[in-house]
């Protein structure tokens, strides 16, 4: 059974990654699951300078989903490289770095800082975080800006670059095409949907940041549709995710066109999901007579 994937130049031992922001810097869950066995660990979104993040409450459960407004709390890229990366390298974890900038220049600068760092397999560009007001969301909603960000980053690094697309747009395919034009090696989709909740007792928005990002099974149908659409229109491998909590969900994503999948909220429900899901997929593939995961990619289109 061949489960390896080449995701735009990143060699994955298996096609299941854990999504940025849901798996910390890769070792927080190490008591429960060995991060080096996971296809790829996409670490918490990192910015040039440290960020304290948003005031609480930062998370809230919604029907079959959750809202988060972490606000990109992180210690900054230097601390990441100095303190976290060496430990991940030592354990031979396949690390994809996730970066978010306030300007095209900042994205480029961060890419140059990652260039040449041993132990980083690729860069996921968070151009779609709904919880940061400067930068963040607007980068991901205008095709021309997306093209420019990707191009600027590609200039600074030889690492595979994977822009992460926001679903909060009218035309996801246009954004995906722009990312391809900018030189993206693969696409990651989807990030969270914009959402909010109100506390009827306090009569106020629940989240400290008012708005947050919706993730979890609730958004799975939206993610599948966008991946299905982009698969038809853009010739780049897709790292697909949004609401995956079991192997059946994951299979849906492969069939819609994802070359690999990412698990976010599902890790909170079951920290061993990334590997358990793999077993379920293998069983399905065996039973159905598939010998390579590639055979499943986009199969629902034919």
């Amino acid at each position, binding site marked *: 059974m061949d489960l390896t994937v080449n995701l735009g130049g990143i060699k994955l031992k298996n096609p299941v990654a854990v999504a940025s922001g849901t798996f910390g810097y890769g070792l927080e869950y190490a008591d429960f699951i060995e991060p080096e066995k996971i296809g790829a660990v996409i670490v918490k979104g990192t910015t040039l300078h440290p960020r304290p993040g948003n005031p609480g409450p930062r*998370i809230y459960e919604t029907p079959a989903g959750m809202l988060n407004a972490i606000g990109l709390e992180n210690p900054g890229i230097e601390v990441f490289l100095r303190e976290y990366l060496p430990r991940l390298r030592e354990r031979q974890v396949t690390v994809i770095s996730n970066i978010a900038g306030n300007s095209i220049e900042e994205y480029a600068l961060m890419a140059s800082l990652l260039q040449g760092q041993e132990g980083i397999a690729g860069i996921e560009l968070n151009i779609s975080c709904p919880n940061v007001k400067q930068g963040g969301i607007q980068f991901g909603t205008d095709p021309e800006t997306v093209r420019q960000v990707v191009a600027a980053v590609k200039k600074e690094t030889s690492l595979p670059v994977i822009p992460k697309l926001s679903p909060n747009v009218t035309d996801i395919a246009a954004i995906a095409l722009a990312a391809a034009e900018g030189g993206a090696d693969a696409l990651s989709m989807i990030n969270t949907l914009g959402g909010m909740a109100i506390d009827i007792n306090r009569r106020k928005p629940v989240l400290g940041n008012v708005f947050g990002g919706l993730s979890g099974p609730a958004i799975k149908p939206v993610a599948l549709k966008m991946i299905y659409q982009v698969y038809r229109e853009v010739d780049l491998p897709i790292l697909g995710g949004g609401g995956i909590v079991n192997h059946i969900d994951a299979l849906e994503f492969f069939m819609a066109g994802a070359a690999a999948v990412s698990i976010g909220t599902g890790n909170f429900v079951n920290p061993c999901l990334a590997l358990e899901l793999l077993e379920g997929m293998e069983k399905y593939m065996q039973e159905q007579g598939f010998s390579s995961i590639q055979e499943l990619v986009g199969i629902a289109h034919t």
Partner: protein
Amino acid sequence: MPSLEKARIISNSKQYHNLYIMEIEAPKTAKQCKPGQFLHIRSNPGLDPLLRRPLSLYDVDKKAAKISLLYKVVGKGTALLADMLPGENLDIMGPLGRGFSLPESAKKCLLVGGGVGMAPLLYLARELRRGGNELLVLYGVGNEKELLALERLEAIGSQVQIATIDGSRGLKGPLIPPLFSEILSNERIEFIYSCGPESMMKLWQEWAGINHIAGEVSLEEYMACGVGACLGCARKARPDNEFYVKICKDGPVFRLDELELE
């Protein structure tokens, strides 16, 4: 090292109104437990609710590999827990978090537990007594039927003082320092532990400050991961701090001098 485990439910029953005690057999988990830590529990195999729910270690019997949980039904997750039957499996993850610190040498400790806030304090009391500490427990509830931990507390040899809102037992009133001023004036407390509504703990924090007593409190916040991976359970240690602590990993237990309660 914490683990994921399907623990077998030994008993699960309503004690009074919306208060339940569940006893589980958890061989992998029980032996790792320290007072003040918590289990992150999946209340159902479905998607509603989706996330795990944190519950404190109410009591632990390492030899028998048993853990007791004391919980109050407040919403969907706890309601589903209450429906579970002996023999069923409970999906637990833990023990998680930083628990209470135990004094190096025997001390006179004050434990202040309000309502279901007593949950983490019974196991703490047990371990403190094992270490030879002397305990004064202030136990505040709405009415005497909610005093679920009382028997066990007394059995392990703690001195318990009770406050009930309705006056059905002990002093009448909320669990705040003035109500116990007379009792406390005769005691030489060296350390205070507290869990309950934050507004109550804040008053005890002030009291401890005035009396130069060190101590610890256990806090709550919505949680997703429970292990410091999502940064969801954040709160500021002090209002003017720029950065946030995480309840699940830096806590749930904090030293009184680490933070300002609200």
